């Protein structure tokens, strides 16, 4: 077990707390940077997709895991980011500017949705965001003069600093850079007063208000931030798709994003990465499994969504903290060996709260 000897408050503020962290995260970064040399085009593309999911997941995690506002409509922000980026890129805007614009437009729409949804919590908020996603999908399919509707919209080729982005590895590095930047920004928010205000709203709105946190401002901000980050993922997703149409951003995508956050582990940024790996690679694993299964099972319709759903149910029932929570348990098992007990991580009963004010 590691005991940290702290000599300065900076040690609690820094992202990497000790030598072990620096080593492992450094190694991960080196491996991620070396991946294009080791992986074939197909798996590199899949890894790229996983990282795009992860960016969107960071956005959704800030909202769901840290501010406690459930959204079932994040496919809409993905779509808004993708369409804004493609349209502006088509209009001749430089690549980077167009990505920034996509982030800003998504954030602005997110702020609007957040502001409208201020009075709603829990399931009602989920329904409202779901309605917003439906509305966005419909708007995109009807506004043919702008988006091409179901005829689709070809995503223009990207070029960065005069260099056309055509190869898989170029997109891979672009996504990797943006993922690292996004994670940094998100973790920075979380270690400052803004992030703490978000956590405060998640855990108790009434006492957040009593310590001077303006609920309306911070909830709207959380929505805007979350939508902006998801819009960034959308812009990258557009290049992955190559051709945009409304049915690429259905309710199933929203659900998949939420699934990623839940399976990864609500309330942890590492959980986002685990969740993204999970939803990114599960279809591949299933495809491989299909080859070995007897044809009657392998060819059964709806096998993939079925297994997805089954896993979601099992995670919520047996591991509400997701993959990240399981990892913490495994870690403490070894740290405390042989003293680990099943009850070590049992969830404590919360004390009765009678006079809840809202």
């Amino acid at each position, binding site marked *: 077990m590691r005991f940290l000897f702290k000599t300065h408050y900076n040690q609690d503020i820094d992202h990497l707390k000790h030598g072990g962290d620096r080593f492992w995260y450094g190694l991960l970064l080196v491996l991620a940077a070396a991946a294009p040399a080791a992986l074939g085009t197909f798996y590199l593309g899949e890894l790229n997709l996983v990282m795009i999911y992860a960016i969107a997941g960071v956005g959704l995690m800030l909202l769901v895991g840290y501010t406690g506002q459930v959204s079932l409509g994040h496919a809409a922000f993905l779509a808004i980011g993708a369409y804004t980026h493609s349209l502006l890129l088509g209009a001749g805007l430089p690549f980077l500017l167009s990505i920034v614009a996509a982030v800003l437009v998504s954030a602005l729409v997110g702020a609007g949705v957040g502001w409208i949804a201020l009075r709603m919590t829990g399931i009602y908020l989920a329904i409202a965001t779901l309605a917003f996603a439906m509305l966005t999908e419909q708007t995109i399919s009807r506004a043919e003069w702008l988006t091409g509707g179901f005829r689709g919209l070809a995503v223009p080729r990207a070029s960065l600093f005069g260099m056309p982005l055509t190869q898989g590895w170029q997109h891979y590095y672009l996504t990797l850079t943006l993922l690292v930047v996004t994670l940094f920004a998100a973790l920075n928010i979380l270690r400052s007063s803004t992030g703490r*205000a978000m956590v405060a709203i998640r855990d108790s709105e009434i006492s957040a208000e009593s310590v001077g946190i303006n609920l309306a401002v911070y909830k709207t901000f959380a929505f805007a931030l979350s939508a902006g980050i998801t819009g960034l993922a959308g812009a990258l997703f557009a290049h992955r798709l190559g051709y945009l149409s409304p049915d690429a951003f259905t309710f199933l995508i929203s659900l998949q994003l939420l699934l990623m956050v839940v399976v990864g582990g609500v309330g942890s940024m590492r959980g986002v990465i685990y969740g993204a790996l999970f939803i990114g690679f599960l279809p591949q694993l299933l495809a491989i499994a299909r080859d070995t299964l007897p044809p009657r099972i392998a060819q059964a319709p709806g096998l993939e969504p079925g297994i997805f759903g089954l896993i979601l149910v099992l995670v919520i029932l047996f591991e509400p903290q997701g993959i990240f929570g399981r990892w913490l348990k495994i870690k403490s098992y070894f740290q405390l060996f042989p003293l680990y007990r099943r009850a070590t991580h049992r969830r404590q009963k919360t004390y009765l709260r009678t006079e809840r004010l809202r």
Partner: protein
Amino acid sequence: MSYLAVTDLSISFGGIRAVDDVSFEVEEGEVFAIIGPNGAGKTTLFNLVSGIYSPDAGSVRFAGRDITSLPAHRIAPLGLARTFQNIELFEHATVLQNLLIGRHVHRRSTAPSHLLFLPAVRREELEHRRRVEDVIDLLELAHYREQRIANLPYGVRKVVEVGRALCLEPKLLLLDEPTSGLNPEESEDMGFWIEDINRDLGVTVVMVAHDMGLVSRVAGRVLALNEGRVIAEGSPADVQKNPAVVDAYLGAD
């Protein structure tokens, strides 16, 4: 002009006048206790003063300013902090994070600079941390600093909540039943802390309490409520002897 002046405050929920024409004044630097049987309207009164409810009639003035219609998040920065009877902490955060959230009103940097975590933000964070450590030292919470609230025993949570309120560096502290659910030792400690907060930090304290031992020890003046109305006001000894108070607690005849 007194420090906290509540004038003719009233609020009804449906047909029930929970607080009915209540007036009292608190002077700067004193410890003022509010007592009364269950359902007397003590907590509702606190919710009115701290801006969680807005009253049907009457006014609240704090430090010469009318705060009657201000929302809670605008009242806290004026130097008014409170605790809750049933503990409203941020359960999935550590003690340290809870106390840092209490520093919210003292933030100087804005969200864009937080995204980049500029050096000024780090300096501000270090400053917040030093102030929080002062509170941790005062309330002897060092042992629990890194623990999540959800894993803490009830007595410690009660103390953490007082600590979070102190992190606002308040001028006026509203304590809603600071010793409810505590064992005699913990109550004793809480009494000492209230005295320390009042004398050493110069914070004016208004508290709701049932524990008459605590009230007699720390409070200078007491207000007794029953069914939303003021039935007595004065020194702890006088109020305890007041026939209306005895009636309210024990019933007439």
